[in-house]
């Protein structure tokens, strides 16, 4: 790691070897799907995640949530989602990502991350742009949004009145990460 990159990391509040953990009470994952007659939004706060800065300046991140923990405000719809996503076989949705912290690092951070989403037993690559801000208490607020294809994950899209929901599902991520002391 170059001295300039090390200085930038320290200025941004990140240190090589540092591990950050998601604070689930202050974090949320949301999904958004569209039907011709409905717009469905679901949210969960049962999230576990961790981010680690490696000595070579690589940032690794992993976030996981139980699919059955998402709530859309309708129990029947949530039950239908659990049936469709086969939560008994694939109970979690997981994201893994890596990013290289380059010399142009700034605070607040805008970071491109390459990763993959694992859902319904299938992994698909995604490219996300993270917006990270340092909070007054030293925590990091990280936000991003990306779209996934339900068909790409082998999901039989639910239907209403014989009309299926759209293939695109938007995922909104709003995480609060705190330094983890092990």
């Amino acid at each position, binding site marked *: 790691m170059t001295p300039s990159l090390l200085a930038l990391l320290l200025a941004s509040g990140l240190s090589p070897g540092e591990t950050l953990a998601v604070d689930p009470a202050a974090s949320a994952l949301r999904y958004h799907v569209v039907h011709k007659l409905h717009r469905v939004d679901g949210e969960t706060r049962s999230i576990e995640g961790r981010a680690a800065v490696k000595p070579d300046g690589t940032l690794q991140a992993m976030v996981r949530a139980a699919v059955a923990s998402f709530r859309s405000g309708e129990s029947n719809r949530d*039950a239908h989602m659990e049936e469709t996503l086969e939560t*008994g076989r694939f109970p979690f949705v997981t994201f893994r990502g890596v990013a290289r912290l380059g010399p142009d690092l700034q605070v607040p951070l805008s970071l491109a991350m390459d990763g993959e989403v694992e859902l319904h037993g299938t992994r698909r690559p995604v490219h996300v742009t993270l917006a990270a801000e340092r909070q007054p208490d030293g925590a990091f607020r990280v936000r991003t949004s990306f779209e996934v294809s339900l068909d790409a994950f082998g999901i039989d899209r639910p239907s*209403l009145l014989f009309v299926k929901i759209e293939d695109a599902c938007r995922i909104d991520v709003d995480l609060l990460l705190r330094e983890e002391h092990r």
Partner: protein
Amino acid sequence: MTSVASAWAPVVNLRPRRGSRAYSVTSSGILSPMSRELPLLVLCAAAILAPSAGRADLRLLDSELAGPSPLPVVLAPGTMRLRGPVSPDRALLAAADDESQKPAGPPAPSAPTPAPSLDFDLLAPPPPPPGQDPALARRRTLLDWHQGLGIGLFGLTLATTVVGQLNYDDRFVGSRPSTGNYLAPHAVLATSTLVAFAATGMLALLAPAPPVRRDGFDRITLHKIAMFTAAAGMAAEGALGLWTQRREGYLNQESLARAHLVLGYVVLAAVTTGVAAIVF
């Protein structure tokens, strides 16, 4: 000695005099007395070291000293030419220099930086999945049939109510005599509605329970309230319709028919509310 010395004559640029010792010219140009065997040793060393000099062909040709020579000089392709008096070691050095001065080939392309691996785990492994409950697939099938039959039920309820209104108007509104044209269709539609309602309700009641029951008022709660209201009204409609038909010729038949009609609209409203709670 004479044959060996004459063989080296072009190299050393000396003509050894008869009976004298053979001399060799070093790189510094200093003559040093040598034994007769030294040129032969040097020749053997050159033959041994030639491969390490880049396999340069050490056939030497000095054009300035070219002259009648007892040895045939053959130039092979790629043979190196040296000008001026040279020694075998200078020849080796020159061969090595020529090899080093050859133009270097294009630099080998640098290997692309490999993408960082995503094969890592920062979280503790989750508990093993419990496995998919097969009852959930049966629930989905029954609810899909329930949804399809429910749409048909709404259509039948609407048709029964419309034909019932026409039948009431034909029988009790206006002064013209009743034609009776809507009596049989209304009876058929009403019976079909009752059968469809019972089948739709049975599909929902027989479907396995959802994975987790959650309390609170939502669309499904409104749907259930509306459909239970419609079920009660439909049961009353069936009884009231039969009673109204049996009161043919009685003075209270019209009031019974009016109650039957109003109750029919209430059932239609309840069914519409139950369907709208799911669709919209």
